[in-house]
């Protein structure tokens, strides 16, 4: 069973059917790359080639088909597609020039848009991006702006240029129509979440993903599927939210719940974590891992997220107790005691747990800061420090009043008689120049209390 699972982490066709167009192809190719040489990888590649043969993207089709073995390339069909594409390109350009001479805004906009669509289907992302951006000047209504933004966002995500993604998201969100259309709003949030994820801002990503309205579910399939939203949102939330946020944004969140229903594994994961069933939670994580490794957007972040979730689980486990028996805890986390001890020691050192470990008896003793006492102590400390600082300040002010600074060359006179307590007594290291008195006084500088013409 394990060998088969290793070979076939999940049902490829079902996975692929969640996506459309470019997203499908990208993901399949990614899987094929990662699993190069295995049967699974070959399956993915085959599916990708199939999909590509339906599309206009001849270049990618050729690349993929060559990887597969090159035998299945339909040369004739390929050439025909190329010819048709060239024709279409010429036609679109001619039409666009026509519109430009006629100066009809709407037509120009549509012309550029069509060009963009054409380039996108051909796989020429840079030109597609340029064309879409060009439509910006001819957008007359909010709808146009949104359409343009969504197109640009889609292309930018594929290009990996998340700066543009963020820019155009904010542009789109400023348009009035966005509020009325939950699908569009959802798409924007999802894209925003993706951008945040790539920027390693997991908390922001979690927020965005959990705010995606459920109506959007399957409408964004050319970028993300509903399962993706669930998984990304769930993992980021577990890694970055604290308990109350987790409860309000994930567990009690009606809209997000719909997404979690689509991906029951994630739902179980979150519920287990919240319910402190750590062993099962970590199990879910391990089960999810093979599939997530093959996901182009999240595989790079898996280590960080998993480590974060694990340490959060450890911290959460120890919080309610004054003392914890390490073997029991190891049992709960399905790990061995020495490994657990090491992990806990690291957490203690990075100050995420306040505790001490009795290594001999294998017990963890928590130290709960007494809030009240701590506050009093802080207040006293601050007051003492203030007092000390003020006294020092007064002295320094006095030093400046008497121009008491050591000038160059003054040190020589004190050479003898001081004894061997310090070796060597250089007169100075050439400080040079007369410094303005203000920096020495800290707060007092600039109040005009000191006459700068003392020298």
């Amino acid at each position, binding site marked *: 069973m394990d060998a088969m699972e290793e070979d076939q982490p999940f049902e490829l066709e079902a996975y692929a059917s969640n996506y459309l167009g470019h997203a499908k192809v990208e993901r399949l190719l990614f899987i094929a790359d990662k699993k190069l040489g295995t049967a699974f990888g070959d399956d993915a590649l085959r599916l990708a080639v199939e999909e590509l043969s339906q599309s206009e993207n001849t270049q990618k089709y050729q690349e993929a088909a060559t990887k597969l073995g090159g035998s299945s390339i339909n040369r004739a069909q390929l050439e025909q597609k190329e010819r048709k594409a060239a024709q279409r390109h010429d036609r679109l350009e001619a039409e666009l020039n026509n519109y430009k001479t006629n100066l009809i805004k709407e037509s120009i906009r549509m012309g550029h848009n069509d060009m963009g669509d054409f380039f996108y289907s051909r796989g020429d992302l840079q030109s597609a991006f340029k064309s879409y951006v060009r439509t910006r000047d001819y957008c007359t209504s909010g709808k146009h702006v949104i359409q343009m933004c969504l197109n640009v966002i889609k292309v930018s995500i594929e290009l990996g240029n998340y700066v543009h993604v963020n820019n155009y998201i904010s542009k789109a969100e400023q348009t009035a129509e966005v509020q009325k259309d939950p699908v569009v709003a959802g798409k924007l949030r999802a894209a925003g979440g993706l951008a945040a994820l790539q920027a390693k801002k997991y908390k922001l990503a979690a927020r965005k993903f959990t705010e995606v309205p459920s109506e959007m579910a399957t409408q964004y399939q050319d970028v993300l599927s509903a399962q993706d939203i669930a998984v990304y949102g769930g993992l980021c939330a577990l890694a970055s939210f604290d308990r109350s946020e987790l409860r309000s944004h994930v567990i009690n969140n009606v809209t997000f719940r719909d997404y979690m229903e689509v991906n029951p594994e994630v739902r179980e994961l979150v519920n287990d974590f919240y319910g402190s069933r750590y062993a099962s939670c970590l199990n879910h994580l391990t089960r999810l891992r093979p599939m997530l490794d093959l996901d182009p957007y999240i595989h790079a972040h898996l280590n960080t997220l998993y480590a974060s979730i694990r340490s959060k689980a450890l911290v959460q486990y120890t919080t309610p107790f004054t003392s914890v028996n390490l073997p029991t805890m190891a049992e709960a986390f399905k790990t061995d005691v020495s490994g657990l*001890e090491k992990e806990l*020691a690291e957490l*203690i*050192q990075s100050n995420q747990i*306040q505790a*001490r*470990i009795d*290594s*001999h008896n294998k017990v963890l003793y928590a*130290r709960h800061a007494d809030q009240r006492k701590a506050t009093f102590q802080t207040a006293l400390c601050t007051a003492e420090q203030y007092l*000390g600082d003020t*006294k*020092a300040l*007064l*002295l*320094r002010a*006095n*030093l*400046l009043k*008497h121009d*008491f*600074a*050591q*000038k*160059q060359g*003054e*040190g020589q006179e*004190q050479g003898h*008689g001081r*004894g061997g*307590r*310090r*070796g*060597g*007594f*250089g*007169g*100075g*290291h*050439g*400080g*040079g*120049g*007369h*410094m303005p*008195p203000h*920096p*020495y*006084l*800290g707060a007092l*500088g600039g109040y005009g209390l000191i006459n700068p013409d003392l020298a």
Partner: protein
Amino acid sequence: MNLQQLIQAIKGNSHSLQDLAHLLQQLQVSEESLRNQPQKVIDALSVVDPSRESLGYLFLLHSVGSQGLPDQGNAQFLATASAFVGNCEVDQIRMAPERFSSLCRQIKDHAGALGSPKLAILPLKIGLQKLAPTPEHVTPIHTDFVFSCLQAKQYNAAANTLQQTIFDVEPSKTNLKPTDLLLYCYYGGMIHIGRRRYSEALQIFLQGLTAPTHVVNAITVATYKKYALVSLIHNGSLMALPKFTPASVMRFIKAEAQAYTDLATAYTSKTQQDLPSAIEKHQGQFAEVRSFTYSKSRETSQIIMIAEAHRASPRAFSCITHGPVRPRLSYA
């Protein structure tokens, strides 16, 4: 004027303020000649009354003392000077602060040369109280006093004086030089270390480090080194110097004090290898540190012990870092 006339003048003019001012001038003029006849001056001392003719006595005594320090010190001089400091009249000696503080310095030197710096402690304490116009003034005598306490290892003797916050330096009244102030801060800090009062030590070291200055001198260097070590022991980390530290000091630290910054980073990073290797690397510099007073060597040995703890049991180390860092480990 010759010595006899001078003595007459002293006897005659030590009563009213104007007379004293006049006398001061005469004394200042005659200083040179006094220096040339040490034996006669010593004889003259027995004629002059230290408690009422303090100004004159001061000058005479001072010229004796400035003859130079014999190797074994001069016990008699020390005794005379100490007695004088106890008996002198405050107003009169305040008229010649540089002579008075110089005299106190001579007391310190002689006591040190005689091998019992303890003898200087009490006279100097009285001296500084007399010279300072207010308790908040700091004088060069403060520096000498603290130095003597340090030399004599009588740390608690200096406690009261150090406790007193100083607000005023008035060079005209106290003849204080910048180096004196820096030394006061340095020695004061050392005393605090000896008494294990690390936070106070840090404060006074910081005072020395942030005193306005255009050049860096060896005192500041030494102060910084101690400051770094005490900061590590007391706080567990090396605090950055405040913004108003003079630029020359900051530059120096970046350039020369690399050993200590390394040690600080190694200490705070809590990795096993870094700390002992950082100490070994700068063994030479720290050896100089270790040759200092007993308390100093205690603190470096504390650091070494912590390094050992690192090696022995990293887990135990995580325990002690969250309590006060006193390595009372039992290597069970």
